[in-house]
């Protein structure tokens, strides 16, 4: 790898990191504004114009709070918990193709940090490691509510990972590749995977809600039963890390859904516009981010519309609802592909 390529990758990595953090930061603001809109309120409007500085104020508050580690807690694991949650949340953005290729001074720069040929599986692996952050944090707090919250989180994430994996298998059957870049490139024009895998998309979306612990699947932190769930004992920036990791996960899940099912940075008539290739690439990235923002809005919309599940309902939905449906989806997809290859 040449020096300029390495350098461009490193710069791009930091840009992605910054974008992820800023989007996650302003998701907290958007969430409160959306909630306010849904409930016919005004929402935060004191800090700055339209309350735009509210996330900064929140962050400052988190930093200034007293840091408390319970006496009976396991100190190492107590600190390790939020760190793992934050790290795995940030690691996922590496394989997402944020745009096409830019050509600057003769050098082609790909707007994707790493084009792994197992991109989907990498995201899946990071999600499955992310469970440890919640589990270890909840256990190390030495608090029964935290423990219950983390046990709930772990069983919920394991259950929904299965259905999610099977939705991905059906998608891989249609695309024939595990690389996210190739999946996006196949979806040019209107060939979005949502039209080929509508059921798979639905399963993936619901499982993404469950994996990010968002309402109606927020039982791990169910306030009415468990105080705060796994982060009951946390304060200061360690609590901030947990809350922030949730928003980063939401952003990344929205990006993954947009990549897998909504054509990523493709949009219809992309190739017919009489524009420079670089401009088209940037336009594609802008469209990609618009798709992501819409999906983030969808996450919030559902959170403020639907009530929380009961825990047995959640388990029934996962094991008796989604897993059989996703297996059926795989079978139907396989049969259709087989006959398509046989006859056409």
């Amino acid at each position, binding site marked *: 790898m040449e020096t300029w390529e390495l350098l461009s990758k490193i710069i791009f990595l930091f840009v992605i990191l910054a974008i992820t953090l800023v989007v996650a930061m302003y998701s907290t603001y958007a969430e409160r504004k959306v909630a306010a809109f849904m409930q016919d309120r005004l929402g935060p409007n004191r800090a700055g114009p339209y309350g735009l500085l509210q996330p900064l104020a929140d962050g400052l508050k988190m930093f200034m709070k007293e840091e408390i580690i319970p006496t009976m807690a*396991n100190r190492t*694991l107590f600190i390790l918990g939020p760190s793992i949650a934050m790290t795995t949340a940030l690691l996922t953005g590496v394989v997402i193709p944020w745009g096409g290729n830019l050509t600057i001074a003769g050098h082609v720069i790909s707007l994707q940090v790493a084009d*792994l*040929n*197992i991109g989907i*599986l*990498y995201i*899946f*692996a990071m*999600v*499955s*490691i992310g*469970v*440890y952050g919640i*589990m*270890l944090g909840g*256990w190390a707090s030495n608090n029964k509510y935290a*423990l219950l919250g*983390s*046990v709930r989180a*772990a*069983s919920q994430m*394991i259950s929904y*990972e299965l259905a999610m994996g099977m939705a991905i298998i059906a998608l891989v059957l249609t695309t024939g590749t*595990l690389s996210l870049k190739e999946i996006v490139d196949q979806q040019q024009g209107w060939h979005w995977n949502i039209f080929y895998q509508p059921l798979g998309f639905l399963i993936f979306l619901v499982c993404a809600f469950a994996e990010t612990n968002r309402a109606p699947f927020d039982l791990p932190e169910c306030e009415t039963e468990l105080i705060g769930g796994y982060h009951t004992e946390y304060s200061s920036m360690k609590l901030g890390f947990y809350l922030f990791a949730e928003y980063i996960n939401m952003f990344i899940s929205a990006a993954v859904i947009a990549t897998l099912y909504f054509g990523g940075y493709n949009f219809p008539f992309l190739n017919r516009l009489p524009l420079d290739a670089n401009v088209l690439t940037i336009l594609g990235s802008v469209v990609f981010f618009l798709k992501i923002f819409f999906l983030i809005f969808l996450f919030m919309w559902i959170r403020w519309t639907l009530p929380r599940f009961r825990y047995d309902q959640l388990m029934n939905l996962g094991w008796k609802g989604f897993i059989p449906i996703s297996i059926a989806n795989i079978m139907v997809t396989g049969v259709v592909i087989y006959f398509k290859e046989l006859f056409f």
Partner: protein
Amino acid sequence: MTFLFYLLAAVAILSALMVVFSRSPINSVIFLIICFLSIAGHYILLNAQFLAVVHIIVYTGAIMVLFLFVIMLLNLNTSNEPHKSQLTRITAVITGGLLLLVLIAATKDAVLIQAKNPADYNIGLVKQIGQTLFKQFLLPFEISSVLFISAMVGAVMLGKKDSKKN
């Protein structure tokens, strides 16, 4: 690359030792997770990305979560660890020694296998593994999947039996 190999190997061996030596089961589980991650790193060094990721998903993401889950539910700690009698210790030492003996006997006459395609760096990628599994080793692959299904059905049956008794 060599430096990375030695680093990963050192981490793997040290964490594997810590699994055995640490007193608290939770710490053992965490060291086992680190051990698995470093083994996944070895796979990446061999350019076997698929194996590495599947290793992380299956071992780190599923099996170890279940381990941790059980330990958390039973709340196993050093404080309430059942005291082991002298007899158990002696038995454990003898069994471990015998296992070591068997392992040494088995590896004593081992010969270094020559790699089939030493220059093929694509051997660990999805396509190659899929071709090998579904062409060369189709029957063993399918039989092992039947084995897994039978284990799953067995586990469900065992679980059902218990609930009826209550």
